């Protein structure tokens, strides 16, 4: 995996897929739009490592910030930051 696909300030949408194996995309953060606040560098994908794959994908990890109201409905009023591998994300507008 080369250059990070997303940059700080980009809006991203998380996957809605519920995989049949370990993943680090928490259920509450699936199908949500958030903002990249930090690019953490590249790390082996936890989903692949947990399955014991000999050659896990190595991907950029992003800190993505979600407004609480989007995740849980009103009243909101706080932010939740989640750390997500690139394959959990697609671009959003």
């Amino acid at each position, binding site marked *: 995996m080369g250059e990070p696909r997303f940059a700080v300030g980009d809006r991203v949408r998380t996957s809605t897929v519920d995989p049949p194996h370990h993943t*680090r*995309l*928490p259920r*509450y*953060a699936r199908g949500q739009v958030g903002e990249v606040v930090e690019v*953490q*560098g590249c*790390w*082996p994908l*936890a989903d692949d490592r947990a399955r014991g794959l000999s050659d896990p994908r190595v991907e950029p*990890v992003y*800190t993505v*910030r979600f407004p*609480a109201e989007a*995740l*849980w409905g009103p009243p909101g*009023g*706080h*932010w*939740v*930051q*989640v*750390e*997500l*591998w690139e394959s959990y994300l697609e671009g959003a507008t």
Partner: protein
Amino acid sequence: MSGQHTNSEIAVRVRRLEERLIGAGLTSDDELDAIIGQVTSGSPANGARVVARAWVDPGYRERLLADGNAALAELGFSMSTGPQPQRFTVVENTPTRHNVLVCTLCSCYPIALLGPSPSWYKSEAYRARVVREPRAVLAEFGLELPADTEIVVHDTSAESRHMVLPMRPAGTEGLSEEELARLVTREGLIGTAAV
């Protein structure tokens, strides 16, 4: 493994599990010893030292916020003693912003700096509620934040570990670095208390 095993039910189960894992070639005595050593050498006193240094040394504070791993190394701490190195970041509380840590998926925690995590940190109630209603959860810990304080909940879902840099309490201008470190609590480093 230490030679001080008790015969409690859990100790017996752990011992059997160790024997099987070692027998299957999945781990070794040395590897288990290293992990146990890492867990038992961690203590909130380590995190408190880092915080006190940041309070008295603005240059250190800046380096700590910019590159947590490098700043830890200056004080002789490391996040690289586990199975894979971890990225370390420090999030700073300010008069307008409060940070609190959680791992909703399991119990990820900066053991080298804070020691073993408290049982409540691993509880389903804390993990489920603090992302949803942090203000109410913090109030139950005795931390009432002003209504206009921005709250950021950090869900430790990947390979980073975090620590909160609490605000230095008022009236501590005359204290030494060592005295300041003694004011810092584990809960202050997680964000469920002020210092």
